[in-house]
């Protein structure tokens, strides 16, 4: 497997993701109004907040799917807000899973997992296939290798999407409300997969509405509203000692 070489001076004792005073607008609409936080290696961060508060925009900025107007995001020392950013270098480090699973419908489950390492990283097919088979097993979809996305349930597709992302050997995973579109029965199996990943030490930034899950796996929870972080803290205190009225109101609605 490829070693990541960083010549950015980043060392594991520094934050893996460091966001400082992030501003993001779509035209005249300012969606993020100065967001800052750090994520250390191996940490699991949950971002919660009402719909439209800028959660998706925030994590999409981390892997440069959205551009940034002001501020800084550093991923292992790579400055994302840099016109000369090497997007491939960034995306090798950052995996992302979306709310709509977005699998490639014309490829089988295992092909979905194999595609990017072969096309993007140009790794040999045999090696990739072996790793893909292991990843499919890891997300407990053994036997579904040859199924097309359209033949799988939402939860199964979402787990293929996780495996597809992991096949690139990312250092950090972004999850954007990945259980929001699923049937309640399949939510659990997807959350279980994420939990396993977190336990293995994967650095994760999760946007989620699953409060019970957030409480269980997060090292730190951030509550966002209208483009700012209103309140944050470790789950133990966050859920019980929320001070801001907006946080309280949100929690009372959702818990």
């Amino acid at each position: 497997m490829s070693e990541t070489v960083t010549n950015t001076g980043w060392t594991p004792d520094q934050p893996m993701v460091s966001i400082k005073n992030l501003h993001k607008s779509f035209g005249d609409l300012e969606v993020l109004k100065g967001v800052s936080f750090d994520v250390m290696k191996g940490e699991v961060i949950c971002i919660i907040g009402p719909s439209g508060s800028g959660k998706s925009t925030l994590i999409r900025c981390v892997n440069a799917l959205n551009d940034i107007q002001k501020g800084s995001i550093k991923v292992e020392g790579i400055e994302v807000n840099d016109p000369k950013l090497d997007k491939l270098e960034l995306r090798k480090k950052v995996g992302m899973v979306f709310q709509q699973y977005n699998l490639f419908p014309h490829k089988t489950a295992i092909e979905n997992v194999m595609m990017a390492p072969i096309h993007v990283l140009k790794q040999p097919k045999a090696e990739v296939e072996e790793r893909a088979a292991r990843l499919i097993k890891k997300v407990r979809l053994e036997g579904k290798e040859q199924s097309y996305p359209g033949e799988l349930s939402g939860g199964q597709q979402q787990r293929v999407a996780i495996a597809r992302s992991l096949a690139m050997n990312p250092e950090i995973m972004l999850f954007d409300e990945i259980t929001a579109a699923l049937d309640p029965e399949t939510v659990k199996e997807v959350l279980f997969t994420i939990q396993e990943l977190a336990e293995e030490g994967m650095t994760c930034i999760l946007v989620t509405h699953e409060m019970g899950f957030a409480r269980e796996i997060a090292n730190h929870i951030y509550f966002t509203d209208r483009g700012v972080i209103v309140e944050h803290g470790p789950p133990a205190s966050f859920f019980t000692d929320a001070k801001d009225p907006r946080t309280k109101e949100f929690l009372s609605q959702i818990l």
Partner: protein
Amino acid sequence: MEVFADFFRDLYDTTGLNFVIFYEEYESERFIAAVWTSLKLIVICLILSLVVGIVGAWAQGAKSRIVRLVMAGYIQFFRNTPPFVQILFFYFVVGTTLERAGLMPLVDMGGWNEPLIGNFGWAVVSLSFFAGAFNVEIFRSGIEAVPTATREAAEALGYTRLKSFIYVIFPLAFRVCLPALNNNLVNLLKTTTLAYAIAVPEMMYTANQIWSDNVNVTEMMFVLFIYYIVLVGILVWLMHKWERKMIILGYN
């Protein structure tokens, strides 16, 4: 073979229906040569028009404004002018101008020289760009039907615009546009008869020569209709086979 020829000779003697191409060696050789020329013309134009369509659809999404403007101009020109005029223009204006300016390389044909692009070549160029312009539009509508979310998934995995086009966007777009593509290719097949205007010895041109020599317009028209019905039938059959092969399990 002899029985076959005798049948048509008898048919002519008894009914006056003159399918001369089936019993007279000279005419049947002309006819067979025309079959080959028209098949060659059709296959080359079909393939090139697809290449033009794919490259054009890719270029339409280019960052450069100039590239996009050139593409828009190309499509407007070829879609909004008659293909008949286009083929005459390419042969008599573009071809002649290039030759006069000494810009057209000559190929030694063993004793005499021919321009690298002659009437067959200009028919290929003009017809491929004509059908290609429609193919660009067809592929573009297919590309627009691919959800942004699918594009972003590829982007997040590190795919560049070109790689994403090749491996993700185009294969999905292609399936969406197969029916429209089917129509346009059938049209192109029929439009190759315009090569007649610049004396490419394809089926239309040769049929015309044969009926001029034998005064059997009706019979040759009949042959023409049958010939194109069979060819279009084969093309449609192949496209449907392709379409079925492309069906994605559980998709749409």
